[in-house]
């Protein structure tokens, strides 16, 4: 009796073998999927860096990123031009900075309004509208920017600022061009608004309701609850959203190419035209000689470096804030 029991148990534990045959195949498939990502990434980095190498070699890395002159040569085999990418790096950082400066407070405001203030019937439509902004293709933003915003809003506002006392500062000084750092920064701000708003809303919603209620129960007004509890508590989320927005701003191409003015020199003024890293690539790639293509690839590599640094910094900030609010006074 007991012998039968043992053999039955043994049989049932052995199973059909079905799982053992299928598992290695499945495992192999997901492994291929996972490694392919790494392979593609590595191939991109190696290929672009190798192709860009002659330019880095000729200019020196520092010379490349700090050089202010960009004059393209026409050789197929060697570097004959001068490639200083500073105007483009400057342009990218400048418009991204101003886009963030405009978009973050606006996004926080929108997120607070939707989450904390808007009546129930307005929340959903408002949130959907903001999400819809994220779905508009960037070339549409580019067109609307060219045919509407810059003519009727950005240029007039720029003129107003330039003719105000602020205009005495070189930075805000005239002339005010239609296509400028200012126009590019504005379109960027609109484009990155949805992602920052979405992340802010999410982190606001995650603030424990207990803490919010505690503040209300001590006689805090709605504004005080938002300012002293919800926003400070969501700091890491706001930083995270900002960095995601910054990542998108740094990489945005077509709207910038349309609106920044495509002047390959840098200008200290905000309302003057310039160029950015992405826009110079897309604007000049088509009729570039091989050595100029190497130089554009070098810009690509540099842009990739910058976005990597931004991402690492963002993660560090979020991580440290997370640790801090867990155990110490904020």
């Amino acid at each position, binding site marked *: 009796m007991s012998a039968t029991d043992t053999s039955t148990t043994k049989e049932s534990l052995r199973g059909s073998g079905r799982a053992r045959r299928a598992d290695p195949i499945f495992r192999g498939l997901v492994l291929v999927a996972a490694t392919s990502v790494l392979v593609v990434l590595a191939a991109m980095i190696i290929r672009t860096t190798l192709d860009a190498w002659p330019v880095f070699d000729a200019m020196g890395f520092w010379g490349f990123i700090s050089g202010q002159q960009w004059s393209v040569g026409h050789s197929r085999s060697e570097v004959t031009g001068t490639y200083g990418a500073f105007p483009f790096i400057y342009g990218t950082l400048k418009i991204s900075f101003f886009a963030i400066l405009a978009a973050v407070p606006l996004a926080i405001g929108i997120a607070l309004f939707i989450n904390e203030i808007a*009546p*129930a019937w307005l929340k959903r439509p408002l949130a959907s509208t903001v999400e819809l902004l994220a779905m508009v293709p960037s070339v549409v933003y580019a067109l609307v920017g060219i045919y509407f915003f810059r003519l009727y809003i950005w240029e007039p506002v720029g003129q107003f600022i330039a003719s105000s006392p602020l205009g005495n500062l070189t930075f805000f000084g005239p002339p005010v061009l239609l296509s400028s750092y200012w126009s590019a920064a504005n379109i960027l701000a609109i484009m990155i608004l949805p992602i920052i708003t979405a992340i802010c809303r999410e982190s606001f919603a995650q603030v*424990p309701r*207990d*803490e919010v*209620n*505690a*503040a*209300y*129960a*001590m*006689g*805090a*007004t709605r504004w*005080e609850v938002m300012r*002293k*509890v919800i926003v400070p*508590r969501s700091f890491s989320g706001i930083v995270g959203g900002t960095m995601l927005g910054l990542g998108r701003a740094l990489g945005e191409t077509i709207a910038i190419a349309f609106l920044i003015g495509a002047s390959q020199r840098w200008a200290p003024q905000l309302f003057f035209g310039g160029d950015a890293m992405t826009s110079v690539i897309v604007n000049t790639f088509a009729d570039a000689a091989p050595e100029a293509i190497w130089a554009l690839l070098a810009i690509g590599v540099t842009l990739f470096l910058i976005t990597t640094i931004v991402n690492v910094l963002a993660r560090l900030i979020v991580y440290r804030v997370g640790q801090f*609010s*867990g*155990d*110490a*006074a*904020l």
Partner: protein
Amino acid sequence: MEQPRTATEPDVPASAEPRDDAAPAAQGGMPEARIDDAVFDIAGLTVRYGSFTAVRDISMRVPRHDITALIGPSGCGKSTLLRSLNRMNDLIPIASTEGRVLYNGEDIYADWVDPVEVRRRIGMVFQKPNPFPKSIYDNVAFGPKLNGFKGNMDDLVEESLRRAALWDEVSGKLKDSGLSLSGGQQQRLCIARAIAVSPDVILMDEPCSALDPIATLKIEDLMRDMKEDYTIVIVTHNMQQAARVSDYTAFFTVDVDDEKGERTGDLVEFDTTERIFTQASDQRTEDYITGRFG
């Protein structure tokens, strides 16, 4: 605590008022009596969430400088009633309130009343200890800072922590996070935080339900000390707790309407805790107290 009472008072609604000690229970209808000094005079209070009626037609008076316990089975609306006393229900968009809640004679639901001011005078301690992720000091200073407190903040923090019987345990580590404390200490920190804005009434929504028995007893001791200075209204699931700390007890029940599938909270009986627990006048109260339901 014992106030002079008379058997019948014509100016008092005849619903669930504490009856006079001298009045015989079998008077017919709901027994009634008078609380001379009431902080809250609630009359015909109905709270709805959307179309759902959470509590219906509640009338009772809450005595000053006493502890009043609200007890009853889950879903009987005792927390809803508590939250309507400092207009915390306003924060729920679909909540609506009918009837009146007189606080020191003024209807806190009147048009001209600012709910923020109501909550400054009527503080609240929640079910789960909910200190801010700030230092112990900043937790207590939070409310006074909001209200533009001008005096010596260090003194106020110390005084509030002393009143919450927490000072001796935290005096050396005021800069530590409030979250580093044990659950019971966190709850006393929340009490200190509520005290710091000098409220008149403190509402407690099952303040001990997340605490162990030792921490619970400490909070109960603290409540008895606090009633010198504050009026306390406490919601509790724990009948022993109501019996131990409260002077008055209101018993609520759930009225289930099977046809509509609705559950509405009703006030069954309000009396001195002693009477509720020894000679309840309503059978449902007695059944609940003796553990026959709920």
